[in-house]
């Protein structure tokens, strides 16, 4: 970055948001209360697929302190639709409350509104529904048979959409390759599961016709856009506010029916309406993720060099296409990124997004990349075994090298820069690979099951206009907006269209603004999460906020600084280009006496307009947007190294060590980067070992509490080792790359490899599905024993 010399960029600055959060002074949606607020409780379907024959709300309505009970027809004018532009896409319409039919167990059918939460919950028990159960499309096994009725009437088959692509040379390369290996891989359905569930409070001002929705969202402006469609109300009549949010990870990046329902109920009843999701509802009705099945064939030569790749990808997207992503997101991402960090020249892929009677499927940290990484890395390990080569060596032979950039992937992506072989070496180094090998030898000598696994990946981040145009989504998430305003006391407010729910953006954006304006971090206040603050923007998802909002803050702050320069130049009769800004002052370079404090200058601008040069207006404010080049993303890369030990009696896998070497370009704040990596890795370890939504045969979710859906606890996690590489992107402001999701991408692949490696002391098995629950590990161990005995 040119401009004032950076003082805070790159520093381990303590977070500015911590004070309020540590003192219990954060404001989360569940904490928001307005006078006269009513409480809502939703009555949800127990049946995945059924006709609603009858319902009775009279008893509930008769309860004291119950204000209203709404059912499907009351809100039938509104619905959530998100239609992809892909050819052959079959659309769905999600009702706000089920009308005549249920399409997943957990779907809201009625909304009870009462004076308080306890009453609403009691009254909800008195709402009764009679259904005629239909045979559900319970999952991918059912859609592949194609003998069930589709979830939506008028559909042909069960696919939202199926797409294929192949490079021209694929057939020939595949046909002439000396060897091939095919693997079939499964990732279980699971979810983001933030510690704070969803919540919203809606109010409607009759006088102005203004809706105000407080909601736990990562994407306030997009929620406004979705509400505008669903309610048929102009955006100028909707304000969406998302205050402190207790983690999102993607599950809070979709419009949900409850948000629409609370708005409608608030208008109908003339009182604020509040809903706070409970944990069971979160499991059954918040969006799910990660459920992929891949069949992947690698074609390679004697050295294990991958010549061509073939894949068939199936994703169970649940019952409805979600706003704003549509139901094509996971499948499209997997198709694009599957070749990953390797020099794959020829590629053929088919991807299908299926519709089933399960909860809708939304974003979760990494979107499809964990499954894609699992597939390609499991394939690499198989190729290594096939060639009798070392797993690290086989990767080195195939990785994209430092001189290969820009790399045009076989799927049409352009990787801008990276350090793949170096990150692999670095991970082996910080992870103590040689020591691990010695530990493994010692463990094996004692008959213990000790394994080492590794995974390498490249992560598409900060993708903008061109990428989302290609993805066929109705809204192209191309840019973010920042507004910078200096006040008369020389402090600044930075407003941004992104949202911070733990990523530390309140701090990193303040670091950037402080540097550009020559102020200290205490002089900067960062605000976000209110559609009234900036014009438009998409929000926080897809590892983009530091890059895009960071770039927008640079542009807006520089514009404001330019006005300051003009005013200072006028005052000192100097040229604006000779004015330097820093340490709270503007000075004429080379004239030690000619200096004025920024605060003093700001006061002059606003309060003494006569001191302004001709043509300069008395305002120190600028709004700018930033759409990072080249629009198809900039690429972060990393390598992960894990070691595990398996208990042969219980099948339980313990992660002993976990090392990450990550290259996300220049880091604004390394401490925050590490926090993001560690948090992502922990979620990835959850993916690898524990997390799975288990259903009964009728597609009803069985895992609905933290006692049967396990997320990692402190004792499940090792200490992490981390190393950084910093290869700047040639395209973005400051060379920044995104990194918020990366940690979650590789642990499934690395830990599966480690478990397989541990079992290899007994026999050769292929670990082909996640999570690695004790039952599955025991089954593989038995298989390994049989296989080992047979040799």
């Amino acid at each position, binding site marked *: 970055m040119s401009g004032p010399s950076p003082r805070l960029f790159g520093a381990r600055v303590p977070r500015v948001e911590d004070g309020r959060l540590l003192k*219990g002074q954060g404001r989360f949606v569940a904490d928001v209360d307005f006078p006269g607020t009513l409480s809502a409780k939703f009555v949800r379907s127990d049946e995945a697929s059924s006709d609603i024959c009858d319902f009775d709300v009279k008893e509930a309505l008769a309860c004291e302190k119950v204000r209203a009970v709404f059912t499907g027809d009351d809100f039938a004018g509104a619905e959530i639709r998100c239609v992809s532009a892909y050819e052959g896409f079959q659309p769905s319409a999600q009702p706000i409350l089920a009308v005549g039919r249920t399409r997943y167990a957990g779907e809201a059918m009625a909304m009870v509104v009462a004076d308080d939460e306890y009453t609403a919950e009691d009254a909800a028990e008195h709402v009764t529904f009679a259904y005629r159960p239909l045979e559900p499309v319970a999952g991918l096994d059912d859609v592949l048979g194609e003998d069930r009725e589709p979830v939506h009437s008028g559909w042909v088959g069960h696919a939202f959409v199926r797409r294929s692509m192949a490079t021209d040379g694929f057939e020939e390369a595949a046909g002439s390759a000396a060897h091939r290996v095919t693997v079939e891989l499964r990732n279980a359905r699971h979810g983001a599961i933030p510690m704070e569930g969803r919540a919203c409070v809606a109010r409607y001002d009759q006088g102005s016709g203004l809706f105000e929705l407080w909601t736990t969202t990562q994407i306030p402006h997009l929620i406004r856009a979705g509400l505008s469609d669903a309610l048929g109300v102009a955006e100028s009549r909707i304000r969406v506010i998302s205050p402190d949010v207790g983690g999102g990870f993607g599950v809070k990046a979709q419009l949900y029916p409850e948000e629409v329902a609370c708005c409608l109920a608030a208008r109908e009843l003339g009182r604020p309406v509040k809903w706070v999701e409970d944990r069971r509802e979160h499991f059954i009705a918040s969006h799910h993720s990660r459920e992929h099945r891949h069949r992947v064939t690698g074609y390679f030569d004697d050295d294990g060099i991958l010549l061509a790749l073939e894949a068939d990808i199936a994703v169970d997207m649940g019952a409805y296409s979600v706003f704003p992503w549509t139901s094509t997101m996971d499948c499209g991402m997997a198709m694009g990124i599957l070749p990953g960090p390797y020099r794959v020249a020829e590629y053929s892929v088919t991807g299908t997004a299926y519709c089933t009677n399960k909860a809708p499927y939304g974003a979760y940290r990494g979107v499809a990349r964990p499954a894609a990484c699992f597939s390609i890395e499991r394939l690499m390990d198989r190729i290594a075994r096939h060639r009798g080569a070392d797993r690290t060596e086989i990767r080195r032979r195939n990785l994209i090298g430092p001189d290969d950039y820009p790399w045009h992937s076989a799927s049409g992506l352009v990787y801008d820069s990276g350090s793949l072989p170096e990150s692999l070496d670095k991970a082996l180094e910080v992870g103590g690979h040689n020591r691990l090998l010695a530990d493994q030898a010692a463990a094996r000598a004692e008959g213990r099951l000790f394994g080492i696994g590794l995974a390498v990946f490249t992560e598409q981040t900060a993708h903008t206009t061109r990428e989302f145009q290609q993805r066929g989504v109705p809204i192209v998430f191309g840019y973010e907006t920042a507004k910078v305003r200096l006040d008369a006391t020389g402090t600044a407010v930075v407003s941004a269209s992104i949202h911070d729910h733990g990523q530390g953006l309140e701090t990193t954006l303040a670091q950037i603004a402080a540097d550009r304006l020559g102020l200290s971090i205490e002089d900067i206040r960062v605000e976000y999460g209110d559609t009234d603050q900036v014009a438009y923007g998409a929000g926080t998802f897809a590892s983009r906020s530091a890059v895009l909002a960071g770039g927008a803050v640079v542009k807006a702050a520089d514009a404001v600084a330019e006005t300051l320069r003009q005013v200072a130049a006028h005052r000192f009769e100097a040229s604006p280009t000779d004015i330097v800004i820093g340490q709270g002052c503007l000075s004429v370079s080379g004239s030690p006496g000619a200096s004025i404090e920024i605060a003093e200058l700001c006061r002059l601008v606003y309060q003494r307009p006569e001191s302004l040069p001709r043509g300069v207006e008395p305002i120190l404010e600028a709004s700018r947007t930033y759409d990072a080049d080249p629009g198809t993303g900039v690429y972060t890369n990393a390598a992960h190294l894990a070691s595990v030990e398996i208990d042969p009696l219980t099948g339980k896998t313990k992660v002993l060590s976990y090392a990450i070497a990550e290259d996300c370009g220049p880091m604004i704040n390394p401490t925050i980067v590490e926090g993001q990596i560690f948090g992502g890795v922990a979620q990835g370890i959850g993916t690898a070992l524990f997390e799975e939504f288990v259903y009964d045969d009728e597609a009803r979710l069985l895992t609905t509490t933290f006692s049967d859906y396990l997320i990692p606890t402190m004792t499940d*996690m090792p200490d992490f080792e981390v190393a950084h590489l910093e290869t700047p992107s040639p395209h973005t402001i400051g060379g920044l790359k995104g990194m918020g999701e990366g940690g979650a991408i590789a642990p499934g692949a690395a830990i599966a490899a480690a478990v397989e490696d541990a079992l290899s002391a007994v026999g050769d098995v292929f670990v082909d599905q996640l999570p690695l629950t004790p039952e599955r590990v025991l089954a593989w161990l038995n298989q390994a024993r049989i296989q080992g005995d047979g040799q």
Partner: protein
Amino acid sequence: MVEIAVEVNGRAETAEVDGRMLLSDFLRGVLGLTGTHVGCEHGYCGSCTVLVDGASARSCLMLAAQANGSSVRTVEGLADGEELSSIQQAFKDCHGLQCGFCTPGLLMTVTEIAAEVASTPSRHQIREQLAGNLCRCTGYHQIVDAVEQALDQAAGGGR
């Protein structure tokens, strides 16, 4: 309805509450102490942890009426005005929080441990003692850093 008298963060409070009202709802809804967070209402996540007569308790599993006659401490009672407690400061120093939702529960649990700690525990012991507090953001590493720093201080730097 039940009449209760509770001392909360050093202040005497009296209220008439529904017999079934949870302590978490009483603190949040009646007293406006929204720093105590509710993450599951099942007793698993630990977000709602408060100290009742000095011992950690899950306020989602306790009735307000059960706290009658007790002294309750919540996250709002930790800092001395603007000044963070040494445990809060350690969380800030070590980046022991991200979204901050689980944080109040962790701070209360650590406050209880710090009151009794004689020597700095190992990282493994810290993990065992805090395994009942779930965090989805941090991956725990930096929380363990923070607790190590805080307990080291509480134990007078002794090991």
